[in-house]
């Protein structure tokens, strides 16, 4: 039985007993949509490495264990109900620049610009982020740097992302600050928690992009 199926059973019982069920976010239940979000015994997404809450199974626990389940805790992710939080801050960080400005139409042929395999693979590894927010939940500073670093890295590694690389990183960082995320002190908890194993190297890359953008920008 999976951890969330345990919640299903619990809720079913609560409903039959006339009580309110426990609200929690979940959708795909195969570890890719990023909706599920529980801090289980102090660990976002529970004890297994590179795993989401929905893919955690009850085998991870002993009979009779008491399990403490909490929502993500961060000011930027206000609790909506029970174990649900509002992660729209992430959407707004993306809105600030987590895209390449290209309209639908007739872009150049996909093979017009070759991209070396290493960069493409690194970009993919960064792009694997599911936007669940576990990095923020695990970080002692509630920093969203792994999330933002992954997006900035993905687009910085690809030639298509080059024209907007300066404004992108500056705007995304400004939005993170505005949303109330903390700064990165490189403890490494985010990397160890990330269900997709996104590396904190991406944070360093964001830092580089940021420094370059500030130092080379012509604005006063």
């Amino acid at each position, binding site marked *: 039985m999976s951890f969330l199926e345990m919640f299903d059973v619990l809720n079913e019982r609560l409903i039959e007993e006339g009580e309110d069920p426990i609200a929690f976010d979940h959708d795909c239940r195969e570890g890719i949509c990023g909706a599920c979000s529980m801090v289980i015994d102090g660990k976002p997404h529970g004890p297994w490495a590179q795993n989401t809450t929905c893919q955690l199974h009850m085998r991870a626990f002993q009979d009779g264990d008491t399990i403490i389940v909490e929502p993500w805790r961060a000011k930027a992710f206000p609790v909506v109900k029970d174990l649900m939080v509002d992660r729209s801050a992430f959407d707004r960080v993306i809105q600030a620049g987590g895209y390449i400005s290209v309209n639908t139409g007739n872009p150049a042929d996909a093979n017009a610009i070759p991209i070396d395999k290493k960069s493409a693979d690194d970009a993919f590894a960064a792009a694997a982020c599911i936007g669940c927010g576990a990095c923020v939940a695990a970080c002692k500073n509630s920093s969203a740097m792994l999330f933002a670093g992954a997006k900035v890295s993905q687009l910085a590694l690809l030639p298509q992302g080059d024209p907007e690389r300066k404004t992108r990183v500056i705007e995304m960082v400004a939005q993170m600050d505005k949303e109330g995320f903390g*700064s990165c002190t490189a403890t*490494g908890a985010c990397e160890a928690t990330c269900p997709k194993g996104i590396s904190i190297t991406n944070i360093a890359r964001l830092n580089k992009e940021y420094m370059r953008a500030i130092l080379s920008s012509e604005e006063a």
Partner: protein
Amino acid sequence: MSFKKLLTSAVGRKLTMGATGLFLVLFLIVHVGLNLCIFANDGGEMFNRAAHFMGGNWVPRVLEIGLFFFLIVHIVQGLILEMSNRAKRGIGYEKSYGNRGSKWYSRSMALLGILILIFLILHISNFWLPNRVHQGFLLGEEINLYDRMKVTFSIGWIVIVYLIGLIALAYHLMHGFQSAFRSLGVHNNKYNKLLTCIGRGFAIIVPLLFALMPLSFYFGWLS
């Protein structure tokens, strides 16, 4: 996109922390180099000459102002960061996260920094301040720092405070050295590994060398 962002944004603050931190690391190298002069075991002659070069010469004295400036930026920025970061959680967790993926000292940089600061206040008031007062804050005559050390480090509690300060420094460097490079955007894994090795070596060796000094005096290892 002004320079102001380098000081005020969450990433900018870390950049300044990293940059000032690395400057302070450079200073540590100079400082530990000077200290090692006592092990010439010549009754402090070599040490005092080196100290004189630093204290009785305009160039290092001007640099010294920069050092204090960076030190203060590092401290103030660090405290602001810590306070701001602490405020970001809101409600805390019932059960703490533990050590997965992170070391206690990585999470305790502010605490370690404050311990170092306390040590620094004592250290500066032991040596630097009396010397500069004696000099009239100009290039006046210096006191014999070697002798002063002998006296200072014969006091047990001072030696203990120094040792605590240096242990804090070791852990502070253990995280800070490589983290500074990360903050400055070094993301190549090859260099990261190298820097981790250098950082760990530095974090162990430099504070150890520093610690040898009060210990040597206290236990009378020097002639």
